[in-house]
């Protein structure tokens, strides 16, 4: 394979298998239930037909992927600085990506790709349609070559690349950060409970739904199953069940952490950062530091004791028609670094370690609304209900406990809510349990909104919202005069310079 990709070329021929498998997998996933149903209901006489049908689908997949393979070409237009992809079976599509619009290049390998020995390559841009190029099969050398070509152009356009170039010579390809399995173990024990919990609940609901389907199919006696489950439930006491659930949650958390972040490594490749991690499917991502919009690090109490932080790098996403998971795709998570590693990483992304400047704290009126809507109102409603339904009286303790924890949490969130500003950075601190610090540079600001309620005019309290391409940063209930002053300062910074935001 030629090295400079200047001529249109196809992906590796193994791509046919990968695409076919991918398509078959998608069709299978969509019709799995129908297939099971067909097998069970139609009986042995029709099995041959069903198998024939499956065979036909696989054949169609192969033909489809062969045609796709034939028509999928890509090349690099050196003069125009564009990456051009031609694709489509019936209608021909041409995707043109300007090289300086590329946010990140992902090199992945799933199980099938691992078996065959090829890589998948994906290109993420900040395009509003979310259109991205995905090359399904490419050998390792070409993949890294192509990636190098795709991201290399920035040297000329970005002045900061000079600095990183110097660093790159010092530490060519030696990872600047490597997360050990032991650290990962600690990470798994201390973070991301929320996501794991959501996953567990989703899995639980999914199982119940599927079980119901299967029971329908096999015409099992629902009453029997129900009584068995209930019997099991009474066998263990509630405490034991809660304990089991917690253990399961921790295990899921650990598994997830290991699956995603196994052998997490960050190294510097000239002017971009290479992140690689993954247990079964290894994923490498390349990003250029100047495309990172918001840099965030967070830490909770346990993690503080263990000297561990999680860092996430948020890149530009355009909100339209993008679902939650795609937005997450634009956020890169680096878990379990210590403070020293964090500083190294921040230096790499923001050119220096951000120092906290002048800190602004919110007014005590910050507490009013949450206390009223989240505590007083629900508790009042609860009390009214208790007043009318005397049987609920024993549960009044819950209301008190709720009130106390609620006040505590809101108070902590008030104490932690602050923004610190110096001339190069804006650092917003917030959180209750996980205390996060979001760092942005003023030139990443897209728009600024300030707002004020009429009844806060006399006490000079107002809100601030900084819109960036990767989300918003809010600072609420600050001194409005100070906020206005800050806004004028930031506007001056954004408007006087002509620094690019990506």
């Amino acid at each position: 394979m030629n090295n400079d990709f200047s001529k249109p070329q196809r992906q590796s021929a193994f791509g046919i298998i990968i695409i076919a498998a991918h398509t078959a997998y998608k069709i299978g996933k969509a019709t799995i239930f129908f297939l099971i149903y067909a097998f069970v209901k139609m009986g042995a006489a029709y099995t041959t037909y069903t198998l024939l049908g499956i065979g036909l689908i696989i054949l169609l997949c192969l033909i489809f992927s062969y045609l796709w393979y034939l028509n999928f070409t890509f090349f690099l237009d050196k003069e125009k600085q564009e990456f051009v992809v031609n694709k489509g079976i019936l209608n021909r599509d041409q995707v043109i990506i300007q090289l300086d619009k590329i946010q990140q290049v992902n090199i992945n390998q799933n199980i099938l790709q691992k078996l065959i020995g090829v890589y998948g390559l994906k290109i993420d841009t900040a395009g509003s349609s979310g259109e991205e190029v995905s090359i399904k099969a490419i050998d390792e050398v070409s993949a890294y070559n192509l990636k190098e070509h795709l991201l290399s152009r920035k040297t000329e356009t970005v002045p900061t690349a000079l600095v990183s170039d110097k660093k790159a010579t010092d530490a060519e390809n030696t990872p600047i950060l490597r997360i050990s399995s032991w650290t990962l173990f600690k990470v798994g024990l201390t973070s991301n409970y929320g996501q794991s919990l959501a996953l567990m609940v989703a899995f639980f609901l999914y199982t119940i739904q599927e079980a119901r389907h299967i029971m329908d199919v096999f015409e099992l006696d629902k009453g029997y199953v129900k009584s068995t489950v209930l019997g099991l439930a009474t066998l263990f006491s509630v405490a034991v069940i809660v304990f089991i659930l917690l253990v399961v949650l921790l295990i899921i958390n650990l598994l997830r952490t290991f699956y995603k972040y196994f052998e997490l490594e960050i190294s510097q490749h000239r002017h971009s950062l290479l992140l690689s991690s993954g247990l079964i499917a290894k994923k490498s991502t390349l990003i250029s530091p100047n495309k990172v919009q918001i840099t965030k690090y967070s830490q909770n109490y346990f993690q503080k004791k263990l000297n561990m932080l999680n860092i996430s790098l948020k890149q530009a996403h355009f909100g339209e028609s993008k679902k939650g998971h795609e937005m997450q795709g634009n956020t890169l998570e680096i878990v379990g670094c210590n403070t020293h590693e964090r500083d190294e990483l921040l230096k790499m992304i923001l050119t220096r370690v951000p120092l906290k400047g002048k800190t602004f704290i919110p007014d005590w009126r910050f507490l009013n609304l949450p206390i009223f809507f989240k505590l007083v109102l629900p508790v009042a409603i609860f009390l009214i209900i208790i007043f009318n339904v005397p049987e609920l009286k024993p549960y009044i303790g819950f209301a008190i406990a709720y009130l106390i924890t609620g006040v505590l949490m809101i108070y902590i969130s008030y104490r932690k809510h602050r923004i610190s500003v110096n001339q190069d950075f804006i650092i917003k601190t917030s959180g209750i349990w996980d205390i996060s610090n979001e760092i942005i540079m003023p030139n990443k600001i897209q728009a600024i909104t300030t707002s004020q309620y009429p009844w806060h005019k006399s006490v000079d309290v107002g809100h601030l919202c900084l819109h960036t391409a990767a989300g918003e940063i809010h600072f609420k209930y600050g001194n409005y005069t100070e906020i206005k002053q800050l806004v004028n300062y930031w506007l001056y910074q954004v408007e006087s310079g002509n620094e690019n935001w990506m």
Partner: protein
Amino acid sequence: MSAEIFTNEAIDLESLPKYEEIHLNKPHSDYWKIICINLFILFLLIGIGGGLLIVFNQKVRPHVILIATVYVALMVIFFLLFWASFKKRGYAIRTKDVIYKSGIIAESTTIVPLNRIQHIELNEGMLSRIYKLGSLQIFTAGGQTGHLRIAGIPIAEAKSIRDLLLNKLDLIENPETENEI
């Protein structure tokens, strides 16, 4: 690189131009008529729906007075809210940014620097065309919340603002990020 860290320190914050003291242009008074017509149409439709319900549904009939009061109250509240929001609106174009103030209860001001504008849209609705008004939309990369919609500008003015902004965009040499297939 390190030299410039300290050179900038002495900016006098007080001497910076103040966005909050800029005189804001109000939307054209005809725009209030458009709002009224829109509200009127909305309430007409609701009224027709409610009327049909009362005529054909026996059960609802005893509550006619209640429904009518709620209807009128809603109408008054809506008109008042829209009036308040209409009164609060204002926009200004500075040499380096666009300012837009709006809000129903809270008063919020959004400022978009010109060198962060991605693209501009000029919309003319059916009613707006009768009154020769237009609304200008200014998009940034800041997503849904980071974009401005200034309604009720006389169409000639809106067009000149648009051309002015587009000219400035060209000058700034902002790389067009708006479409990349």
